[in-house]
């Protein structure tokens, strides 16, 4: 038993993967046309923002912190992007300019969070709750009401399929490549050390502030990616976009086997966790249950994942 627990402890994502496969089978039974290119593509389009935000959230959580402001970062990036595109008069140049502005805003928000938490030593949960309100307020200042469409080039490209694969899949592949690159560098060990045993990491001479700020910046960057994808979906600006993403991303991170206390976990696991969350929604929808059940069940599953993590950790 303890051998099994020990094995699972370092590979909690295996449990998530099994759950994902089970959900996939159930979904397929309920929705026979699930495994067709169009349905898979539209599913991925729906899940992608949560996946991206969850990847970013993983780095922050791994470092022993948390980011409750990601939802507002998504909104702020969206309104800045559409506004910059409009200001530049649309066109390919305008779109690229808007995307660049959005990415800069995402990273800047992350850097601000990181600086407050790691340099000024504010408590992460309260700080990012507050900065989330600030970012949300800024989004409303930039664009008070939803609207302001993006040029057709933007959403047409987002919906296209270069080299035979849809853009949403290319985005996912690109995100996974970034995850793999980060996972292969000393940074990820330093981050896990910062989250796992901060005093030990400090004594070892790691630059804790730099590490934690970088994690927040990555989180902001991935939130910006998510926002740009959502913008491709909605094709317009919306200052209230992404409100549920912060909590959904934390659920995905937990489901993916990352310890909320920090120190262990992986962004790949969070991708699986986000997919599980999405599939739960699908299954509930196709089983004909009211939509209200979706959040209830997602909440229960997250609680279960937390309890499972605690149990496995205790047995060791």
């Amino acid at each position, binding site marked *: 038993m303890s051998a099994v627990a020990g094995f699972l402890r370092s590979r909690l994502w295996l449990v998530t993967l099994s759950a994902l496969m089970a959900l996939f089978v159930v979904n397929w039974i309920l929705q026979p046309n699930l495994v067709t290119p169009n349905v898979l593509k539209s599913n991925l389009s729906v899940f992608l923002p949560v996946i991206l935000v969850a990847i970013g959230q993983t780095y922050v959580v791994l470092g022993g912190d948390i980011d409750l402001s990601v939802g507002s970062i998504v909104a702020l990036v969206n309104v800045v992007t559409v506004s910059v595109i409009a200001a530049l008069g649309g066109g390919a140049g305008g779109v690229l300019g808007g995307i660049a502005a959005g990415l800069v805003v995402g990273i800047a928000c992350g850097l601000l969070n990181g600086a407050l938490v790691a340099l000024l030593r504010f408590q992460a949960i309260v700080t990012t709750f507050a900065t989330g309100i600030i970012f949300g307020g800024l989004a409303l200042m930039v664009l008070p009401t939803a609207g302001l469409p993006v040029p057709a080039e933007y959403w047409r490209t987002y919906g296209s399929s270069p080299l035979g694969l849809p853009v949403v899949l290319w985005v996912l592949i690109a995100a996974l490549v970034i995850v793999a690159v980060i996972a292969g560098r000393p940074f990820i060990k330093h981050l896990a050390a910062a989250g*796992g045993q901060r005093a030990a990491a400090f004594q070892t001479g790691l630059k804790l502030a730099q590490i934690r700020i970088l994690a927040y910046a990555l989180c902001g960057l991935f939130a910006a990616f998510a926002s740009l994808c959502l913008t491709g979906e909605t094709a317009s600006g919306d200052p209230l976009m992404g409100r549920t993403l912060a909590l959904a991303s934390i659920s995905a991170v937990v489901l993916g086997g990352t310890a909320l206390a920090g120190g262990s976990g992986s962004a790949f696991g969070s991708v699986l966790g986000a997919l599980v969350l999405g599939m739960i929604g699908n299954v509930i929808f196709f089983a004909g249950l009211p939509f209200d059940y979706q959040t209830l069940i997602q909440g229960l599953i997250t609680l279960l994942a937390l309890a499972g993590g605690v149990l496995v950790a205790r047995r*060791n």
Partner: protein
Amino acid sequence: MPPVLEATGIAKHFGAVVALSNGSLSVGKGEVHALLGANGSGKSTLCKIIAGTVARDTGSLRLDGSEVSLRTPREAEARGIALFYQELSLVPQLSVADNIFLGHERTGAGGFLDARQLRADTDRLIARFASVAGTGFTADAPVSGLAPDQRQIVEILKVLARKPRLIIFDEATAALDRRQVELFFAILRELKAEGVSTIFISHRMDEIFEIADRITVMRNGATVASFASSETDRDAVVRSMVGDVGIRDRVERAVPPSSGAPRLKLKGASSRRVRDVSLTLRPGEILGLGGLQGQGQSALLQGLFGALPFASGTLEIDGRPVSIRKPADAVRTGLAYVSGDRGRDAALHGRSIFENIGSATMVREKLALVWPRHLRPRFEAAAAALNTKYAGMEAPIGSLSGGNQQKIFIARWLATDAPVLLLDDPTKGIDLAAKADFFALVRNLADKGTSIIFYASEDAELLSLCDRILVFNSGAVSAELAGASLDSFHLTNAAYGEVA
């Protein structure tokens, strides 16, 4: 050839506290240099200054004869100085290999981790010290799954992986058993043969004479003596640690402790930090717990009080066996516990003095839900017995000074009339006048028949107050001092002794 390290006249103060007034140390190439001194003598501060984790106020540090600054751990590390941390510096979630090379990862093309190289380096390190590291763990094992002694070895390997030329081992052997200590010494000798110098802090005198080439002794923040270990002996070293003054400063008790049946009898108590401790406590007796800090004294008191319950052992109070699994059991049994960590262990922050005094009585007398106004006179009497200065029972606890707060926490227990009082380094951080009041009170309570177990990190407090002292080493009682042997020479000697 100049010494590898030469520290002279190092001073450091933290606020008003002088941690180090005149620290000096000279370590030759390939030398094992033992640094000795009582709690608070400044040896840890001196080591931290050498390792760059604490910046010195004044004094000179020379490496190979040239002055160096060593203001940060990185700077010291770059100069080949490594500090072994007594408080473990490992990350439990990471593997052995990741921990050993944390912050010094080997990277290949494009800055990627070279996992194979990392593994090979770790295996080589484990193999080189296989006699010590044994086969108990592999490079991939997560540190969270290792036993404390294995973690200690990983910690040592982590230091060695930096290939330093001067290593400071601050109590590296504390978690190791005798066999592992032998193996650790084998490593030290091997390092010595390679010309690596070590500063070795240990609380076991026998180990010091076994391994050290030189011994430097510190007392009250200053270096007082340095010996070649072949030209001195244990008595001379202990004498220089203790100094010439204050060998015996015991204040005789007005009422000697009762010689009747024991109030409390503990047999074979063991827990994670306590090994097979037995003791008896008579009515009116003040029993001291001595030895170096962190040798299990606090863990014993917290065990008796049910905060860190014992895994085994039996406890009798007034001849009746009792089982204490949590603090509430202890309170109902008539035990009281006062800790020096006021903020962490005792204060009900933001609550009134009345509530802070009343909490233990509530538990002891199983009063729930209603604040017992009728107890007010009793609480006031308890506070008055301690000369506590306070504005009123309704004033918040935070309005009092540290010393007066500590009196309130003692009043909390006086109000319960507990027959056994456990004092866990109770005078930590309170001023001298409050200390004197406090000692008078403890004597007074004992004279009236209260049995007291008293742990203090300052030897002088123990020697002035206690009827008997049990000296702790590595979680076990290594000696019992009573009568003529109640002096600082015997106390220091026993604290540094091998476990019997």
